[in-house]
């Protein structure tokens, strides 16, 4: 694994509020190695470890992207949904920013059926066949298309199971994490003080509440993916 420079500056992270954890009462004792202090009833995360883990994660992501792997970014918190979508589009990855449907990966066979329906509906819309239907049917199909677009819009380019999954909040996306564990897909998680660091393969202790902190971490990872992709394109 090559160690590269990922522009991780500790002051920048403190400015974004990456070091704030959740309230003291809600902590998970397994996180104690990553917590440096307790201030005003909130745990403070040790940023040096975070920075190290983040740079190692970026290295890993860079190597994977230069090997041509597929990524999936999952983040369904309302605050983070928008930035997850933009980050994924920027990095040309798949993403899930509305509700994670149960069994999206473990029941991939059924998800594919939905994706096919989505594709057929899109096709019909593009070729204008919806005008030939009576108004009520057309309205029903449009509504179905809208639903499928919100839930499956981010994974419409996914042909199979992804190789790496990036999860933004472990508590929120617990089902997604469990699915990846059963399928043995390596996961990168942003871990806060109330999460379990042993579940994910690669855990980055950071704040998952503030939009700025999520943006920062996603920025670094997206940068790594882009670099990896461009080196993959250059090599192949």
């Amino acid at each position, binding site marked *: 694994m090559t160690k590269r*420079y990922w*522009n991780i500056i*500790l002051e920048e992270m403190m400015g974004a509020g990456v070091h704030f954890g959740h309230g003291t009462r809600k902590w998970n004792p397994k996180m104690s*190695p990553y917590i440096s202090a307790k201030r005003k009833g909130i745990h403070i995360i040790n940023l040096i*470890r975070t920075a190290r*883990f983040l740079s190692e994660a970026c290295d890993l992501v860079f190597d994977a992207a230069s090997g041509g*792997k597929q990524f999936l970014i999952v983040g369904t918190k309302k605050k983070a949904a928008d930035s997850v979508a933009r980050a994924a589009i920027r990095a040309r990855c798949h993403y899930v920013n509305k509700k994670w449907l149960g069994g999206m990966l473990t029941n991939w066979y059924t998800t594919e059926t939905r994706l096919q329906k989505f*594709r057929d509906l899109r096709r019909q819309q593009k070729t204008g066949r919806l005008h030939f239907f009576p108004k009520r049917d057309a309205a029903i199909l449009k509504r179905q298309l809208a639903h499928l677009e919100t839930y499956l819009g981010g994974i419409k380019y996914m042909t199979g*199971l992804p190789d790496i999954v990036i999860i933004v909040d472990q508590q929120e996306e617990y089902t997604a994490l469990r699915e990846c564990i059963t399928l043995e897909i390596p996961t990168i998680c942003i871990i806060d003080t109330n999460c379990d660091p042993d579940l994910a393969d690669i855990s980055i202790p950071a704040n998952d509440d503030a939009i700025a902190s999520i943006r920062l971490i996603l920025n670094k990872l*997206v940068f790594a993916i882009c670099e990896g992709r461009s080196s993959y394109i250059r090599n192949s």
Partner: protein
Amino acid sequence: MAAPSLSSTINSLSTLSLPTSSRFSLPPNRLPILSKSNHHHHHHPTLSHSSPIPKCKPSDDIDTSFFDSVNPNDDIAFNPPEPPEGFVAPPSFDDGPLEAEDEIATAYEELYGPAYSGVSLLGNDVFVMDSKLKKDTGFGSGAKKEKLRDGFEERVVQVRRVTKVVKGGKQLRFRAVVVVGDKKGQVGVGVGKAKEVIAAVQKSAVNARRNIIKVPMTKYSTFPHRSDGDYGAAKVMLRPASPGTGVIAGGSVRIVLEMAGVENALGKQLGSNNALNNARATVVAVQKMKQFREVAEERGIPMEELWK
């Protein structure tokens, strides 16, 4: 009542006529070896889900050694390498102009192909995913596909009719327990329920293929040592035997051992005689076994010491 139709379906499967009781425990030897279920992307029209989960093995490229071996209680230092010459921080993804939808679609399509998007801006075939999925099995060929695919043989241990009582009456379903194995040391036990016997058997075969374990065997096709296993109220004791003995065990234990390829063994069901639980208990017992070589390596002593 549903009884006559049930017995007729069972009769069609086995040559022996069975007593019409509510518990059909079919003797294993009578049933023909039924068709293997599908693999990955093949599509059976009768079943709604039949492909096993394509499991991603941890690929060699993704090297998580740092994260596996780091001990969080140590002092982890952060020493980033020097920024290269003229390093310009890349813009955040939120800044910068929003890309047009077409540009995004073309970029994705270059990377992944048109997949399920329904539009193709680079001139690729929009319905490319169809060819990878469907493999229509017509009625005639579906029945004839009784060949064993990917080397696993199936044996039905038990088919039972189970009921769920609802306001309108009783809802009947069949529960099939199937043991799947190649005769070379890999076995799996699976359960499946469906409204038809054949569908249930296929579901259970799919389920069995997901939980396959490896049986440690010596060169005389027997176990390395005794072991007990229990699952629920079923306790099973397994004991190796000298060559020429054959498998001396009852019911589901015998089937599991036979499908594993074990030729000489003794087994006893202590505790309950529930077929499914006994099959699972044999699997547990087998998982506890270790080869002599492994134990010698773990303990760091030569194998001769173990036989003292």
